[in-house]
């Protein structure tokens, strides 16, 4: 394994992890503040990607596409929160899982209805296309580097938002004690809608950014959703810091596992079977990671009590 390949894979893992963070941050905020499991978060990711592809198709501008994705996902999130989600806050987790599972069915099939079953394509903007030379002679796609940058910027912005602003104070207070901040006169239902729309917008942004490297299709949100759940469970549900650490761990494990495990198995097995065993184990590696973390810390790395 050459060093250059390894560095490329680490960058890929970072890019994947950063995108997972955008999903996981929303999920973990929503869970932390409202105590809600939102399976439909992957649908908001899909809404973002489809909105971006549609806007890019009309206007040809990638910036407008991103704005469209943010707006569409936030609007869809706010709408869903007002119509459905707010009835679920004081239900048990089973009801939440089922109602949001129902939302997935509605979103997925509704999108298929509107856009058809064929994947759409969202092009990487010309200014960001092509590779860039990194120190050490590594050629790496510029767009993926930009994604890493955008993701880290959003993460920093989110930390600032939560730590320094009034709305952040309210969100943290909401996580600590919902009844109390309602009693102190904060309009709790408005806060809930804002948090939900914020989470949705982050998911939509992730969908739009990833939509340019993968195809935009119905069901694209589901694998990411499951991984985002793995992330927040590893990081500790409700913790943004946990979501960041968990995302990077999962992103790197998934990417590096696929590259490193087959050769590792080859060192003590026949090449042909090592390859299949290695790739089978690699595809399970993040789930093994999650089980491992939960066995030692049943409420995740940064989870309280």
């Amino acid at each position, binding site marked *: 394994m050459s060093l250059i390949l390894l560095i490329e894979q680490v960058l890929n893992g970072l890019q994947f992890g950063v995108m997972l963070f955008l999903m996981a941050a929303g999920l973990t905020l929503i869970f932390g503040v409202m105590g809600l499991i939102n399976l439909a978060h992957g649908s908001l990711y899909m809404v973002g990607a489809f909105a971006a592809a549609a806007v890019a198709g009309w206007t040809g501008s990638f910036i407008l596409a991103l704005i469209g994705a943010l707006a569409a996902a936030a609007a869809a999130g706010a709408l869903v929160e007002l119509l459905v989600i707010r009835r679920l806050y004081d239900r048990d987790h089973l009801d939440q899982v089922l109602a949001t599972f129902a939302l997935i*069915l509605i979103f997925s099939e509704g999108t298929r209805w509107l856009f058809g079953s064929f994947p759409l394509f969202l092009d990487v903007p010309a200014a960001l296309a092509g590779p860039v030379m990194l120190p050490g002679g590594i050629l790496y796609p510029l767009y993926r580097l930009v994604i890493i940058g955008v993701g880290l910027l959003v993460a920093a912005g989110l930390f600032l938002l939560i730590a320094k602003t009034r709305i952040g104070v309210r969100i943290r207070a909401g996580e600590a004690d919902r009844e109390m901040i309602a009693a102190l006169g904060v309009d709790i239902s408005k806060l809930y809608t804002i948090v939900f729309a914020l989470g949705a917008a982050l998911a939509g942004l992730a969908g739009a950014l990833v939509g340019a490297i993968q195809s935009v299709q119905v069901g694209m949100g589901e694998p990411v959703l499951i991984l985002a759940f793995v992330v927040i469970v590893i990081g500790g549900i409700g913790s943004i810091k946990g979501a960041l650490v968990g995302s990077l761990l999962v992103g790197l494990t998934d990417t590096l596992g696929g590259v490193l495990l087959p050769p590792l198995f080859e060192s003590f097995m026949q090449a042909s079977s090592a390859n299949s065993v290695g790739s089978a184990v690699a595809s*399970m590696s993040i789930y093994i990671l999650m089980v491992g973390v939960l066995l030692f810390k049943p409420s995740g790395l940064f989870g309280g009590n």
Partner: protein
Amino acid sequence: MPRETLLNIILFLMLPATAGAALLLDEPFIITLVTKAAILALAGVGLNIALGLGGLVSFGHAAFFGLGGYAMGILASHAQSYTPLMETPFLIEGTKSMLVIWGVALATAALAALAIGALSLRTTGVYFIMITLAFGQMLYYFAISWPAYGGEDGLSIYVRNDFPGLNTLDPIQFFAITFGVLAIALFGASRIAKAPFGLALSAARQNPERVETVGLAPFRLRLVAFVISGAVTGLAGALFADLNRFVSPTMFSWHTSGEIMVFVILGGVGRLFGPVAGAALFILLEHVLGGISDFWQVYLGLLLLLVVLFARGGLIGTLAGREVAHD
């Protein structure tokens, strides 16, 4: 007679009555649909033991469903190609006998449930939901990337497996087999609910501290419930694979877990016949709405949403009133 008992009798008779009517009208496809409903109901009966009785929200029952399916697929594919499953240290051959396959499916799913349960039950709440989901996904990706048994494409079996004295390829006879299994499972589930074990399990759901105080271990009760639940769902998986003569990693997917949960909820959580009502309604909707629109799942989603938001006891709760044991 309480209304729920009457409803249960109607639901129970509805399946063979529909299959019988379809036989008279010479509509084998309808018989296959009813068979599918019976098998999915069986999977739901399994989940309902953990979910309804034990309050364990498992989002990974597709793992057991898929394991049962693959137990059938692997054994039958070896029998069909006349190659032994393994030769060292001792010879294991494939088989086309349904009874043997059921035994293997039950045992495999039970063992997997023991391992998954022992690890997952250390957590509670959302973490339990997520860790069971993770185990299901683990097996899903394993099935996709393991090339020996078809990988992503799955495995086809040419002829349905044998059951002594019956022609399993005849739809009505295969229906009779699945209905028999469902009836036994329902009887078993009703006995479990009333047995000391079931009562203790129910109590552990409602108030684990009290159960502990009287000297019972909630963890052990839940683990046993989870194993029984997984085994029954595994058996349903073997039957489902036999119905389609095909297994694929889709059986392991989280959508399958979600759907099994949907049967239980549509019908009514913790109700003995909830899964039967739910699975029958699901198949009916799939068939009727699927005929009207390709996008029938939108309507399924809306219906499910309405049931969760407004009809909390599911179909049986709405028709029979008063909650029995679900909190």
